């Protein structure tokens, strides 16, 4: 190697500096929000000298007793459950069908699932406002948000189910089940779904995270979901609003950590599959 010693030292120092700078950039906003939310002091007084004074959860407990809190949270949770069920009912059969019967269509379907990036939430909700006069019976209900939330979560959920299917030998499993005399329905519920458990759980968590964080559509359509409540509550009580945001953040982080653990527990098998895919491409 021709690199001089100082060059090599720089090569080692630079990544470390990048990592430290990133750690600061990503930690500070959260720490600042935590102080705003949980320190019972005037914002203007917050400083070094009172860093450890008057921490309390009073702001959160106060927000819990707001009349609309329970209502908004219940609505969002119901929407999350509905969206998760709808997603699985639609995507699991579709993805299984594509893998078994239409491998040619895989790229095409994958392309369709990134369409929500092309038509982002704000454009989608513009379309909903146009359609609304023609479908009031449907769109007036709060639950009409469910199919649109399925759309918003589609890029994440489809990919997670698709990865799950790639990791198992679906064709062999289904043929074995069918040749032992099982019906298609029984094959789906007793063979395919148990093998996809991890993918199904992680796509459900992704859906829940998307629904509990979705603000665009519910804000424009004036639906009282949890994020809308949070935004409104901050207007009257900033500390409470920040505290709710921290709780929401903790909730979603836990969901994502769970997804990480789930996908790691399977990580030995997908690697084998990707190896075999490599061979296919080489052939």
């Amino acid at each position: 190697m021709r690199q001089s010693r100082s060059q090599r030292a720089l090569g080692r120092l630079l990544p470390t500096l990048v990592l430290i700078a990133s750690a600061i950039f990503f930690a500070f906003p959260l720490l600042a929000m935590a102080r705003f939310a949980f320190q019972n002091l005037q914002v203007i007084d917050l400083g070094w000298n009172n860093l450890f004074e008057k921490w309390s959860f009073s702001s959160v407990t106060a927000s819990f007793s707001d009349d609309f809190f329970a209502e908004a949270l219940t609505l969002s949770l119901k929407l999350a459950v509905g969206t998760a069920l709808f997603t699985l009912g639609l995507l699991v059969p579709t993805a299984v069908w594509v893998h078994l019967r239409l491998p040619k269509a895989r790229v095409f379907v994958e392309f369709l699932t990134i369409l929500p990036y092309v038509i982002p939430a704000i454009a989608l909700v513009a379309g909903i406002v146009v359609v609304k006069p023609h479908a009031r019976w449907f769109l007036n209900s709060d639950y009409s948000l469910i199919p649109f939330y399925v759309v918003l979560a589609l890029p994440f959920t489809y990919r997670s189910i698709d990865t799950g299917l790639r990791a198992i030998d679906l064709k062999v499993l289904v043929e074995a089940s069918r040749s032992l005399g099982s019906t298609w329905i029984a094959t789906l519920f007793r063979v395919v779904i148990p093998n996809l458990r991890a993918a199904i759980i992680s796509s459900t968590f992704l859906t829940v995270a998307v629904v509990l964080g979705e603000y665009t559509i519910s804000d424009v359509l004036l639906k009282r979901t949890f994020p809308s409540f949070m935004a409104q509550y901050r207007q009257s009580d900033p500390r409470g609003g920040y505290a709710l945001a921290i709780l929401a953040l903790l909730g979603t982080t836990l969901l994502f950590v769970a997804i990480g653990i789930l996908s790691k527990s399977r990580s030995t098998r997908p690697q084998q599959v990707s190896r075999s895919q490599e061979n296919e491409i080489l052939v």
Partner: protein
Amino acid sequence: MAIVNIPPLGEEGAVAQATAPSHFWRTPIDNIRNKKSLAWFGLVPFFLFLILFLLIPAISVFAQALHDEDGSFGFSAMREAISGQNLDAFIFSLKFSAGAAFVGVVFGGFLAYAAATAKRPRWLRNIVSSFSGVAANMGGLPLAFAFLSLLGRQGLGTKILNAFGWDLYAGDFKLGEVSGLITVYSYFNIPLMVLVTLPAIDGLKTSWREACANLGGSAWTYWRRVGLPILAPSLLGGFLLLFANSFSAYATARQLTDNSKIVPLRISFFLGGDISIGEDAVGYSLAAWMIILMGISMAAYWLLRRRAERWSNS
């Protein structure tokens, strides 16, 4: 296909039987199932769902956008959506989205490289990639609130910088202006970039670097001639993804500012406001232009990603 149904005769028939041995044993239902054209029917529910809840809304946006004031077909609203104040909004949005994407690509790329090449500690890479998974999805209200408490006028970060003699608000800094939006959006753009580029960086083989060194190339030559050209599709694709992501973000921007120079906020202003009939077509035209812009960036992203996969697969 009709030929198959004619019963084959004589020796030619025997050959036909031999080349299609299974045909004889199959039930009619199996035959139907095996026809590829019919296999597409299995996707009908999925297609119907997309048509109803994604394509019809999108098409109706265009239908409304292509209305003139008298209700006939025309491009006047589409033209108005890219002139005057609306044009300013598009330019402003393009500026901060491109800026946010650029910052995200540079810092995200470096961070991904630092995480991928760091040998110790071993958990570092896992932490970076898991955290990126969380932070890349952390748009919306909590992010806006976090930055308001850090860099708002009374923010703790603002105070710290003040103590070091840097008055953040002395210039034209505001969370709702270009510099502020770039800072805030970097919080999800950088991790997203890490997620997108980590596989590409893993695809860089040490043997390539060794080959370059053996031929007398320096580290600079390696990056100039080998590393960056291979990473280029991933980096460019990442840029487009981050650009689209920043341009269409609504929730975060909404909490930071009332600035109607941000296109998504402007659309919602037209959607919710009391505006005269005919004016609303401009709102839909803004949305239509946005869909066109996103369509172009995502199509390019899609092509670049396919190009980038060539190296990670070989």
